[in-house]
């Protein structure tokens, strides 16, 4: 049962990641390869605040999400000027810079040692311990993110995003400030990723820069494309496959190190095969 709760927590967190990234990649058509950085900044901000202050958990969440949004805003100002392959490359570079900072800013992030002993969230006197309580918390968070994203993509704001995806120049002709829309959705997605990061850090209780490096951003893209571009249920499905597939690989009994690389190779093959047979992903509606 503990195992089931664990999978539920991780799948919920990655669903949040998938849905938020889908807002940028699927709905707006911008291939952002920096999402893991926001997941990481959220996790680190919360870990540092929880270790050094006595602030209530919800306030910590708020501040961490806020800090991440500010960083995302700075990057987004630059990124929003690009589209297509340039967007992908520039965002990949930002991801590498954030990883370098997490790894080298020893005094703040603990560098290569990471941060240990992150406490469990306490809300209104109730501590969400590992197991059912945490699964409940993560599930509720995923549900909220789903509701928010659903609301966004069905609103007029969401329609502008899809129009940017289809033809940005034409939209600009109609007087839409497309850069502002691209920036807004980017910051929003980053904020949601930060939420997932906060919950991840306090769940695992240990964070390390390698959990947030550029390869992880690429995995996140695998989740979004696999499940389906511009489909929120698709991102949940993508996250579920992403988490559960390696669990099946476990039964093959490969050594840990090799199993990790096999899993990685499998994601790569999945990406290539998808580009051939279904570039929009399993439940997706939009092709790259």
């Amino acid at each position, binding site marked *: 049962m503990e195992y089931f709760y664990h999978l539920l927590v991780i799948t919920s967190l990655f669903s949040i990641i998938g849905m938020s990234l889908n807002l940028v990649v699927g709905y707006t058509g911008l*291939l952002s390869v920096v999402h893991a950085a926001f997941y990481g900044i959220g996790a680190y901000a919360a870990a540092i605040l929880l270790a050094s202050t006595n602030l209530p958990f919800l306030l910590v969440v708020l501040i961490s999400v806020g800090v991440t949004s500010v960083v995302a805003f700075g990057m987004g100002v*630059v990124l929003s*000027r*690009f589209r*297509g*392959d*340039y967007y*992908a*490359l*520039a965002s*990949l*570079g*930002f991801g*590498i*810079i954030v990883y*370098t*900072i997490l*790894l*080298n800013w020893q005094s703040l992030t603990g560098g290569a040692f990471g941060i240990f002993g992150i406490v469990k969230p306490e809300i209104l006197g109730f501590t969400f311990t590992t197991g059912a309580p945490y699964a409940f918390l993560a599930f509720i968070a995923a549900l909220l993110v789903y509701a928010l994203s659903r609301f966004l993509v069905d609103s007029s704001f969401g329609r502008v995003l899809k129009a940017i995806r289809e033809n940005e120049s034409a939209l600009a002709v109609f007087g839409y400030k497309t850069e502002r829309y691209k920036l807004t959705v980017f910051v929003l997605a980053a904020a949601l990723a930060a939420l997932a990061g906060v919950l991840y850090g306090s769940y695992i209780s240990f964070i390390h820069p390698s959990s947030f490096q*550029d*390869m992880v951003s*690429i995995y996140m*893209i695998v989740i979004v*494309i696999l499940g389906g571009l511009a489909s929120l249920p698709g991102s949940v499905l993508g996250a579920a496959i992403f988490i559960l597939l390696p669990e099946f690989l476990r039964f093959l009994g490969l050594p840990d*190190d*090799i199993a990790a*690389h*096999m899993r*990685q*190779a499998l*994601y*790569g*093959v*999945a*990406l*290539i095969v998808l*580009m*051939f047979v279904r*570039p929009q992903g399993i439940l997706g509606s939009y*092709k*790259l």
Partner: protein
Amino acid sequence: MDIFAQLIVNGFIAGSLYALIAVSFSLLYGATRFFHMAHGSFAVIAAYVVVYLHRTLELPFVFSVISGVVLSGLVGYVLFRTIYRPLRERGGSPMILLVASLGVMIVIHSLLAITFSSNFTGLTKVLERTRFELLGASVSSHQIGIFFVSIVVSLLVFVLLEKTMFGKKIQAVSDDEEVARVMGINANAVLSSVFFLSAALAGLGGILTGVDTGVQPSMDLFFLLKAVIAAIIGGVGNVYGAFFAAFLVGIVENLGIWFIPSEWKDSIAFGLLILFLLVRPNGLLGKR
């Protein structure tokens, strides 16, 4: 030893290491019009071929290097025939090809890690270097060799592109694939050889870097990023621009160490790219 002279010399050596990979990346982009994310993988593959043939089987060094270059060229050729060409013929957008190449990068990375482990390894058993003074800076004989190989091979490539029929065909296909086809050029044959040539060049660049510092599966992203940065600064598709920009990146990176610690080298290179994208989006020798 003069620090300034040392940094400048180091910058030139770093530049010569980036040059081949940047030129080959730019050549490939010019002909195929998509960002090949697995380009760094060619460099890593070739370096590992040398590790296997020279270090493990103890075959002669020059033979191992030639095998490595040819083999990475073949990998490029096979990838084009089995993945990129079929995707292009299905009318895949550059983004589809970019995502597929991300998949290729992940697969090659994990296969290399499974075969050779994720650790750093040198290409040769002898790590001792004869060092001597040059313009007040200390360099190793290997580095001088690397520098000259890189310059000579780059020049040969430029001659090939400018002076031969094959080079003219590549230019024709790069300018306009449709028109080239109409003129009776077999575009697919040209692109196949461009893939071979470009992968082989990147492979040589990887071997040169490996001789200087050793190799690790995760260096694919390092190679890719340096190549991309130099290629964009030089104006994508412009091989001469990429060549000069590679040296610019190497020198700026190394001079940057004067002001901030060396862990930030990659961030400096990326900062330079962002700067160029903002003020000169078409690169130094602008042509898009």
